[in-house]
């Protein structure tokens, strides 16, 4: 069932409603980091080539820079590497570009958005999480903690939550024009689990192999239909009729 104990964050809002937000796992986080890292990499690549186009003798030009310019260059490079994450998290609702692409977001441990200090802490700690190489320390820490937090997250009191793409259309989708079989028969009200089961099946029915589609439809009809004999045979005559019946059944008003 959906209520399997996946890691989650419980939030008690002032409105006295308990929110349960799913926590982003190590896979999401690595992918988001990859997106961000390649973005920064390409930024410097483009900057380098633009610089090369302007100045023909790159090595000579770099060496001709004064001590001041060199220091500024190094400080600037460091700032883009480090400021990027914090600016993204503070000003864009807890999301850098990579986190937005993956649909994850940084929040405090109580579910509220991160502030400047938290973001600064967790990003300064990248230096430690990166040890000894390739975020090994951070990954081990993520695997060991219940809410997949790396060392920087522990220090800052933050974690990452996931935003899922949930399609509500399946609840309101209209049956195709096929003749709907009357579902009123000996109808009892379905439980929410059964409705969910039927709708999940209907959403995926198109993509299933024919024999699987028929077999699962049959099982579902037996579970929710309460039909027998001829009526059942009529409903099972074709996948379209089966699904029309199930749709009507799931949408029946109690």
């Amino acid at each position: 069932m959906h209520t399997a104990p996946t890691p989650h964050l419980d939030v008690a809002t002032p409105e006295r409603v308990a929110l349960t937000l799913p926590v982003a796992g190590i896979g999401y986080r690595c992918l988001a980091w990859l997106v961000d890292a390649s973005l920064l990499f390409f930024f410097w690549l483009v900057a380098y080539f633009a610089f090369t186009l302007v100045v023909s003798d790159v090595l000579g030009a770099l060496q001709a820079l004064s001590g001041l310019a060199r220091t500024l260059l190094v400080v600037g490079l460091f700032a883009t590497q480090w400021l990027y994450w914090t600016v993204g998290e503070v000003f864009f609702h807890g999301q850098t570009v990579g986190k937005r692409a993956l649909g994850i977001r940084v929040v405090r441990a109580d579910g509220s958005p991160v502030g400047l200090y938290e973001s600064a802490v967790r990003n300064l700690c990248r230096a430690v999480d990166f040890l000894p190489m390739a975020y090994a320390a951070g990954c081990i820490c993520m695997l060991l903690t219940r809410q997949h937090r790396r060392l920087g997250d522990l220090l800052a009191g933050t974690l990452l939550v996931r935003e899922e793409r949930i399609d509500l259309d399946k609840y309101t989708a209209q049956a195709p024009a096929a003749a709907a079989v009357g579902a009123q028969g000996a109808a009892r009200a379905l439980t929410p689990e059964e409705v969910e089961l039927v709708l999940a099946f209907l959403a995926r029915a198109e993509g299933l192999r024919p024999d699987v589609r028929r077999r699962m439809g049959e099982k579902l009809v037996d579970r929710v239909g309460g039909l027998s004999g001829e009526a059942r045979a009529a409903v099972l005559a074709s996948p379209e009729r089966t699904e029309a019946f199930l749709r009507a059944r799931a949408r029946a008003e109690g």
Partner: protein
Amino acid sequence: MALPLPAFVAKRRPDWDALQALLARQKAGALKLEELRTLDTLYRRAAADLAHTQTFYPGTDAHRFLNQLCGQAYAAIYQPPRERWPAVRDFFRRDFPVTLRRELRFVGASAAVFCLGLLLGALVVLWEPRGAELLVPAGVRQYVAQGRMWTDDILSMAPPNSVASGIATNNLTVTIVTFALGMLGGLGTLYMLVNNGVQIGAISALCIREGMTRGFLDFIAAHGPVELSIIVIAGGAGLMVGQALIDPGELPRGQALALRGREAVKLVLGCAPFLACIGVVEGYVSPGSLFPTWVKAALGLSLGALFWGYLLRAGNSEAVRTGAPADSAS
């Protein structure tokens, strides 16, 4: 009596869609006051719907959808106050120096550890010259053996990986790593402090032995005082983190860590602009002989005095004037 799930979704969905649209526009930052009121109303309705689904349709997609929607609206409504320029000004005028004075114990401990390393490195090299082979990087030793400062080449462009420029560009990294390694129970910070102390001590002792005291002072005088102070302060911040890890007091370890982390990072963030300024001095004033030694020494001493004067005095009078009522109010 609970409606069947599809009927419930169909009935309530317009409100949810409207809330989603408002949230998207809120992210873009284009909401009018009227719409903010609507946002508030819709959020409350969605929260009520969430409570409803929790009771009647737990574990369904509708439940998870509402969870997420309310989470986003919650984040949008309960935003932390935006940090603006006045906040930055306040931070440097009061928050940063006051925090530093409050945590002076840790900065003191960090300074003590650093000086210990300094003494250790210097004594080893003064006592036993071959110790330098162990403690001083090979590149530096080559230069010293030729009787030259390894920093002379920064302006006259020798190998770009010369040690001095490495030291210069590493300042930021050293500061951040010194702080961040506090996450290893403070041991990492102690290691960084001792290690840096030993290296600097050994190099200076080597220079003294080889009769290059003048050249060494010439290089280090202008930026040394402030730069070493900043590393010591970052060390203090790292020790704060380590202390929260080892001895969290009455709080759970995670909470103590988060609390101390917020305080500690103030010290590091506060140092950042000074580190940038001193980086400019180190890259521009310190190497070469553009400035006579006494100018550099005077500059370094006055910068150090200014820096510590600011740290120990700033926000003092204001704290006396405005701090007391603010404290009693909170």
